[in-house]
């Protein structure tokens, strides 16, 4: 850029000099410049490319950075990468903005005044990590190492997790379980003995019928899935979309079923009833791999489309027609498992219903359904064994949520508030904005106020960082190495994240932070390597891979393996019966419904709208709103309101309102989007906006936060997930 500008300025200056001299600049006007040059496109001199992988969401697409005259110019997809196939999503392309974001954290900070007031003293790394280590040692001495918890999201958390484990705490959680895909994973595990994974093992590209239950592909911009979705649509795949909102995906669908919010399970049960009663299911598959089908069939026999109509508002003939379309296209009918599935507090059972309908259609393990993913063999680094914690994890005392297989964030939060089963006195938070990720912000603040230490390691000054005692500024993904990514996907490969450009300030990579902190905690023996390249090199050498090749290409691909049953891929069902569990003894044993039943969600209080939320393709969580490039694409969210309801309330698109929820919490002002694209009983907003952290200057108080309005959450009794869709608002004109 700078070169281009200076070149243009030079021409300007010389042109005006010539004009002044009366020479008229005839040669300048002669069109001697090439079209590209005349467009101000700078020459490609000083250009080089470095491959890495993306961190704008957690899909980890391979990216190639172009560095022009030492500055990051652009990011493009790595054609070698099976995830992105050479094309990044808008966030990936806009990753340049993360690097140049003027709002990002620059220096380590220590809290100067009261927690949450965002008053800081700038300190050295030595002081910041020294303070953190000192507090951690004090917590360990007084409460034991288990009193320290780590919240970490994404591959960058690997090294901090290692430090915390070495320190002796098992309490390591991410909102990706209890606030996201947890119910789905548990529902599928209970049925197939395995979960859909991330990236999901969905063979969308080959599906002939794709069923989306609230999954808003295209707005939810997981790259491979959106690419495959478009591929399927282009090939004429029958898309059936059940969603209270006419999502982008719904606009591509042959069938949009505007279900009553929270009635998805009823719809699924009715579909299954049709498939079973009309013998449209895969009898051979179910007979071979199924367990408890007869009890299952008996259990859903009464769930007729007529019954479901009352629950869902979807006409029985539509339910039948869509069920038949699914049956006709099986096994290439994919009922998408979804990803963020924490909706109503009974989400595991809904996810299990999704798993079961896929089982009926014989899509698990089949082309156009769920393929069998492959992974490169990459041995772990040979670290010394971690100390064994004296106490079990704090989040799920007495296995209250018997099927939780990951740590529950909100469980740690509850223990931090109550001190039961034992006190939690230190939180380290890495790359997750708990204030927006967890429901009921007051509870999060209450927990934070019970802490002796809140250390936040992040790239941006999030709301959570605003509450911290110590803030550790991390490099963006473009400025650091991270651990290797041996992805579980259609074909095995290893991706490398490596720095493509230097950090602009005193930010440090997380591996350095984790290692230095371990040093100050007296845990240096857990970091036998001096720097990350040594670590990565050792891991790769052990696996027999070439580090130089990986640095050059960004990706090392393995041999393709069969991924469908019909091609010989092995499918194991790691359930107690070793089969697909249509009827679940485990659930029965714990007092839950062995076959899913529909439980209607709490109804709308009169005159109020249920708050639904989702994603926009250009933003990730609450992490990207200050990214200048992505902010340019979407600066604030709007509240979607059915057009007729809007008219009734005297509102039109662009009017600003505040949302007041059932507990009297009032949102920041937000623009109304009066639209035909949503049911009249709910409103919708994109998650991640309405920032209140002062440091997020570009995003400060733009739009409103759905998280702020999620004061109520209904906990899933199977796995502790927090259902967030049972909040209701009224609209107040500003």
């Amino acid at each position, binding site marked *: 850029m700078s070169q281009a500008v200076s070149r243009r300025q030079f021409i300007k200056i010389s042109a005006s000099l010539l004009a002044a001299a009366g020479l008229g600049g005839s040669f300048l006007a002669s069109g001697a410049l090439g079209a590209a040059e005349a467009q101000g496109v700078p020459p490609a001199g000083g250009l080089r490319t470095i491959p890495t992988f993306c961190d704008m969401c957690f899909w980890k697409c391979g990216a190639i950075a172009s560095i022009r005259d030492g500055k990051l110019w652009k990011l493009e997809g790595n054609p070698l990468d099976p995830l992105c196939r050479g094309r990044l999503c808008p966030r990936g*392309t806009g990753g340049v903005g993360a690097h140049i974001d003027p709002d990002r954290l620059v220096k380590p900070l220590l809290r100067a005044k009261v927690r949450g007031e965002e008053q800081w003293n700038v300190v050295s790394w030595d002081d910041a990590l020294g303070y953190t280590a000192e507090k951690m040692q004090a917590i360990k001495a007084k409460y034991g190492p288990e009193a320290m918890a780590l919240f970490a999201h994404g591959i960058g958390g690997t090294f901090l997790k290692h430090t915390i484990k070495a320190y002796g705490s098992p309490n390591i959680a991410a909102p990706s379980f209890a606030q996201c895909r947890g119910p789905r994973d548990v529902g599928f595990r209970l049925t197939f003995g395995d979960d859909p994974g991330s990236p999901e093992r969905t063979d969308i590209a080959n599906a002939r019928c794709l069923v989306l239950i609230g999954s808003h592909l*295209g707005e939810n911009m997981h790259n491979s899935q959106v690419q495959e979705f478009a591929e399927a649509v282009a090939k004429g795949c029958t898309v059936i979309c059940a969603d209270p909102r006419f999502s982008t995906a719904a606009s591509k669908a042959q069938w949009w079923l505007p279900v009553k919010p929270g009635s998805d399970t009823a719809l699924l049960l009715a579909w299954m009833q049709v498939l079973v009663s009309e013998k449209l299911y895969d009898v051979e598959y179910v007979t071979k791999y199924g367990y408890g089908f007869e009890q299952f069939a008996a259990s859903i026999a009464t769930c007729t489309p007529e019954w479901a109509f009352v629950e869902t508002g979807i006409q029985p003939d539509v339910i039948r027609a869509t069920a038949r379309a699914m049956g006709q296209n099986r096994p290439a009918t994919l009922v998408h498992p979804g990803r963020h599935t924490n909706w109503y507090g009974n989400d595991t059972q809904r996810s299990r219903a999704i798993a079961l309908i896929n089982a009926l259609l014989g899509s698990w393990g089949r082309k156009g359904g769920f393929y069998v993913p492959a992974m490169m063999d990459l041995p772990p680094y040979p670290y010394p064994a971690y100390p064994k914690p004296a106490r079990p994890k704090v989040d799920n005392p007495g296995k209250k949520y018997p099927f939780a297989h990951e740590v529950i964030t909100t469980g740690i939060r509850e223990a931090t508030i109550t001190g039961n089963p034992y006190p939690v006195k230190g939180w380290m938070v890495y790359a997750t904005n708990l204030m927006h990720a967890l429901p009921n912000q007051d509870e999060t603040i209450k927990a934070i106020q019970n802490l002796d230490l809140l250390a936040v390691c992040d790239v941006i000054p999030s709301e959570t960082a605003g509450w911290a005692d110590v803030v550790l500024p991390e490099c963006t993904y473009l400025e650091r190495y991270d651990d290797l990514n041996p992805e579980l996907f259609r074909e095995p490969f290893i991706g490398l994240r490596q720095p493509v450009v230097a950090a602009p300030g005193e930010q440090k990579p997380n591996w350095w932070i984790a290692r230095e902190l371990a040093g100050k905690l007296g845990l240096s023996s857990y970091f036998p390597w001096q720097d990350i390249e040594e670590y990565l090199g050792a891991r790769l050498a052990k696996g027999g891979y070439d580090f130089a090749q990986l640095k050059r290409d960004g990706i090392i691909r393995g041999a393709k393996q069969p991924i469908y049953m019909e091609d010989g891929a092995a499918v194991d069902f790691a359930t107690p019966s070793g089969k697909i569990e249509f009827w679940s003894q485990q659930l029965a044993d714990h007092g839950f419904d062995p076959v899913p039943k529909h439980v209607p969600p709490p109804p709308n209080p009169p005159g109020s709208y249920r708050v639904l939320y989702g994603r926009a*393709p250009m933003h990730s969580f609450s992490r990207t709103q200050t990214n200048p490039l992505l902010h340019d694409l979407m600066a604030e969210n709007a509240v979607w309101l059915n057009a007729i309801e809007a008219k009734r309330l005297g509102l039109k698109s662009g009017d600003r309102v505040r949302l007041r929820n059932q507990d009297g919490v009032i949102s920041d002002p937000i623009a109304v989007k009066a639209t035909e694209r949503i049911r009249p009983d709910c409103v919708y907003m994109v998650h991640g906006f309405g920032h209140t952290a002062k440091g997020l200057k570009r995003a400060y108080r733009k739009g409103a936060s759905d998280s702020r309005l999620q004061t109520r959450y209904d906990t899933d009794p199977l796995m502790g997930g927090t259902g967030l869709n049972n909040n209701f608002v009224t609209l107040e004109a500003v």
Partner: protein
Amino acid sequence: MARLAMVIDTKLCVGCADCVVACTTENDVPLGFCRDWIVEQVGGAYPTPLLEIRSERCNHCDSPPCVGCCPTGASHMHSYGGVVLVDHNKCIGCKACIAACPYDARYTHPDGHVDKCTFCIHRVEKGQLPACVSVCPTHCMHFGDLDDPESDVSKLLRSRPHHALLPAAGTGPQVHYLT
């Protein structure tokens, strides 16, 4: 001769705006400006709405009014492919071309010249696709030569229903939308 054109499949476009941000980085478009953008148009009514999503930009018209009104010849049609360009060095920033464009596709660059989509002519000249086309995750964007009956874009326009924007404005737009 060639007639370069873009064909965009609205059936596939999800409006993710990857094209927009790719253009921004590729062309150093200043923050706060865009050469391309996403339009969402909803027709019909609940519960049977219709949605068309379009990635819009300069239409590189056959009869570009922005070229005709330019007093210095800065706004011109490139000798190859009919691409409408602005020669930054000739542009005086009178903004007549901005007023002349029925698509409002142009803007004044902070450097003073008028700016807009170039069909990434600097890439096309090297045999690459425009940045927006090359990044699109849905592969909904196609670029090529309409004078070549065997090109992707020619075949698509022959085989699929399509429309362009404001045909009544008489500009002969060359960004086509498959429906």
